[in-house]
């Protein structure tokens, strides 16, 4: 019995050591991968090009283990923690249209950020874009899936009972819509005429859909295994994550890629894909010239770990395919494969060109 125990103990120690070695190996592998990407042709030029183009805000895990919000320049420089709250987790920040404010969700420290539910978790908070003047707006679970309106004076929210519009100064509900199967990640278009979101009403559980606010009419933009939609500045195109069916990789489950489409869903095209990574968190820069996203090892977008490397590419370089991606390249032969600037780990980033008041 005791010898069995000894063997078990040895095995456990070995497993732990092996795990450590593997984990350290993975980290080293990631470092090498990053270094290679940063040294790739055109990356330094891209970094220089975007350096002064405003700020990116994102959530990331701190050394204390909680999640805070950070801002940085689009080339990854000048990273600042703008919340510094060890007792809370903060997630899903979005700049107001003028870039002066952010909204985000504040969760209890022990509450895990759920990739498909984050907009319903915790409390809605507003703050200046440098993290100052924090205002907790509403109670736990109120104002869910809040999205800025075009003037920054109203927000669109969504609960099971429907979509509703809130005047921020009075907190009055100033309009309502049936949610037509929309259930997460609602985003109000820059021109104020549309909403996009993830819907279950088009024959599959996860469709990206668009809704006209004036009529409440909704249409599917992309139907299968697709989510996290966001608007281009023209309010006529959407960027979203999509896991096309019939992929061989990832045990037949495939990899999630970044796609774009027009609002009618008639013209869809690959923006960025990489076999071995799930691409999420896609947003375009305010002038729609660049694309910002996260490249995750895991399907969940990695909020349960520490986020994933963010990255920027030029939209004119779409479609770009990262890594070897043999299977993906067979499907998309004419790729442009432009430079991809890899940024720190983060989750659900957002971009403004405004001067957000951060002083050097």
């Amino acid at each position, binding site marked *: 019995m005791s010898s069995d125990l000894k063997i078990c103990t040895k095995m456990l120690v070995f497993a732990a050591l092996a795990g450590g070695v593997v984990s350290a190996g993975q980290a080293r592998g990631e470092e090498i991968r990053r270094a290679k990407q940063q040294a790739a042709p055109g990356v330094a030029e891209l970094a220089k090009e975007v350096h002064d183009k405003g700020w990116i805000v994102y959530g990331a895990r701190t050394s204390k283990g909680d999640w805070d919000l950070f801002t940085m320049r689009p080339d990854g420089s000048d990273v600042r923690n703008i919340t510094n709250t060890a007792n809370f987790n903060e997630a899903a920040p979005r700049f107001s249209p003028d870039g002066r404010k952010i909204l985000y969700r504040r969760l209890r420290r022990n509450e895990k950020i759920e990739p498909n*539910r984050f907009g319903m*978790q915790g409390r809605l908070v507003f703050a200046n874009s440098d993290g100052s003047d924090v205002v907790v707006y509403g109670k736990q679970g109120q104002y869910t899936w809040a999205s800025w309106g075009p003037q920054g004076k109203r927000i669109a929210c969504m*609960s*099971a009972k429907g979509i509703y519009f809130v005047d921020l100064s009075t907190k009055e509900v100033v309009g309502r819509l049936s949610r037509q*199967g929309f*259930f997460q990640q609602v985003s109000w278009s820059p021109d104020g005429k549309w909403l996009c979101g993830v819907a*279950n009403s088009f*024959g599959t*559980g*996860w469709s990206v859909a668009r809704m006209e606010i004036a009529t409440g009419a909704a249409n599917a933009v992309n139907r299968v295994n697709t989510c996290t939609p966001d608007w281009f500045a023209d309010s006529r195109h959407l960027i979203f994550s999509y896991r096309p069916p019939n992929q061989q990789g990832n045990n037949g489950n495939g990899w999630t890629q970044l796609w774009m489409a027009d609002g009618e869903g008639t013209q869809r095209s690959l923006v960025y894909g990489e076999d071995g990574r799930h691409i999420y968190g896609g947003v375009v820069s305010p002038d729609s010239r660049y694309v910002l996203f996260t490249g995750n090892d895991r399907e969940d977008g990695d909020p349960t770990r520490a986020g994933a490397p963010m990255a920027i590419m030029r939209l004119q370089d779409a479609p770009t395919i990262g890594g070897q991606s043999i299977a993906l390249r067979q499907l998309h032969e004419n790729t442009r494969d432009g430079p991809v600037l890899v940024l720190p780990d983060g989750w659900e980033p957002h971009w403004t060109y405004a001067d957000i008041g951060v002083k050097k």
Partner: protein
Amino acid sequence: MTRIHARLRRSANLICAFVLIVILCTSCSKKPDTGRDAKVTTLGSIEVTAKLLEIKGDLPDIAMYDYAFVMKYEVLQVHRGNLDAKLIYVGHYNPLKSRDSVADGRVTEIGGNIKRFRALDVHRMALEVPIDDYYMGGIINRYFDQSKEPVYWAVWSNNVVK
């Protein structure tokens, strides 16, 4: 040799008899159960006993995605509420999970005693309708192109044993 054979035969007979007794005891222990309990008779606005006619396709095993899966039922008895249809479509939340542990952060007031969904089983269910008024999440509805009837939302789901 023949003595060994006889012993073996006797042992085999004994084992068979034992297995038979166990099977009989197990089937005897399944007492009739109407599925009635304090939850199913009070939650939701509709309460039915219904036969699960089919589970269309596989139940996707995608741990990180919560979803409701729509199943087709034949209504056997309406206990509460207004329901005239003979066939109904019911969305069960995360159907691979036992009903007694299915409640979570997204869906809190849900449960029952069904461990596993099997076609032709009879369930007593507390329901709401339409599903979208009570559940905000992914719905896998393989009857989407066949039926435009409202989908019911299973709040509480118990097994019925005849």
